[in-house]
């Protein structure tokens, strides 16, 4: 499974990196940065990644695959 980010939509609520710091990081501005960009997520992070995706108020994140 992969996680996708739409940079255009992210405005830096920071719910993702607060909930799943192993999967998401923040840039200077506090916008989301993927730790596994275009890579499959390690199995152990899949659940917490899904939870973060479900908490992004901008619909900037999605799970894929």
């Amino acid at each position, binding site marked *: 499974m992969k996680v996708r980010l739409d940079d255009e939509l992210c405005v830096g609520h920071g719910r993702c990196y607060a909930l799943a710091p192993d999967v998401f990081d923040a840039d*200077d501005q506090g*916008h989301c940065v993927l730790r596994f960009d275009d890579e499959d997520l390690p199995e152990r992070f899949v659940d917490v990644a899904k939870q973060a995706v479900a908490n992004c108020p901008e619909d900037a994140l999605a799970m894929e695959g």
Partner: protein
Amino acid sequence: MIDSAAEVHPEDRAANPYSSVVAAHPQPFYARLRDECPVAAMEGMPEGVHIISRYEDVKFALKHHEIFSSDFVAVDIGQDRPLIPLQIDPPEHAHYRRVMDPHLSAKELAHLEADARRLVNEVVDRFIDRGECDFHAEFSMPLPCLVFLSLTGLPLGELDRFLTWKDNIIRPETFDMDEAAAIRRQTGADMYAFFEDAIDQRAANGTDDIISRFMKTEVDGRLMSRDEMLDLCYLFILGGLDTVTATLDCSIAYLAQHPDHRRELVDDPSLIPNAVEELLRMQTPVMQVLRVVARPHRMHGVEMKPGDHAVVMLGSADTDPGEFGADADLVNLHREANRHLAFGGGPHRCLGSHLARLELRVALEVLHERIPDYRIAAGADLEYSPGIREIKSLPLVFA
């Protein structure tokens, strides 16, 4: 209890969100708005003020600045220019946020946690031995102000002066419109003069606080102007104090009346970050944000014209079962999906949201560690103010 749903009048598609009944218990009001008139007119106001209430519509309004613009000086709140970034639209808006956000990001503020914890403890020290307090006056009011002073490197002794300014601007003690405007203008002038001094001092002695950092910040290849700096200080006071106060009031009033939830937090403090989000959702202390219609737009059969105003009801979006499910009206400290809009959304997402979250989390942690058991004093009548839901007096008794 008087039912706030009575403030919605579907027969003439009108509603009044600014009543104390709604502020105290807004959920029935919100539900009726969403169900029976998703675009309502403001009761008693001239035509052209539209209340938007469903989650999807609220989100649409927040994201579409080309239709729902922030580019207006909404009311005379004592400032000279549009407030940056609140009253600026994209794309210009992004130039400011790009340089402002880094100073208020979660990572940048992490160092403030120890300070915040110390301040919360000091505030609690002042009343804990009494076994009771007015939580609003003794905790929720001073705390955000003290955190602001510490963030800006101003003396904590300025607390009272700040509290007075803030009240003069947000709730001038008069019902006379002209008098209120005069109080705001005078207070605005006093505040600007105070911050002029603060900025001069910083220019002279390079200190490291948020004002000094903003002074070194470039926007579009130039330093922020003095006017922009002053406006920013003004906006922090306007947007960063009462909002946190209201969130603390609403959250603690809820927990005082729901001992099961409170006990969960005492037993497992790791739930607190989630509780902060869930209480923000359920209470949505900033009930609404305002926009001005920039382009003709039709929503649920209602025509909106350029120049019309939109009251974008964050609180009703945040309790919409369409988004949050059948238990949208209940606090669930274990809620899995919580895309609440208590800090707004889209480009104007609250610049202070990470600071607010830090304050709220630390406050709930320290309070429940030191005062695990509290309730509302018998006979107390909680009066919530509309718009930003502060509670005028919140008497608590500790067990």
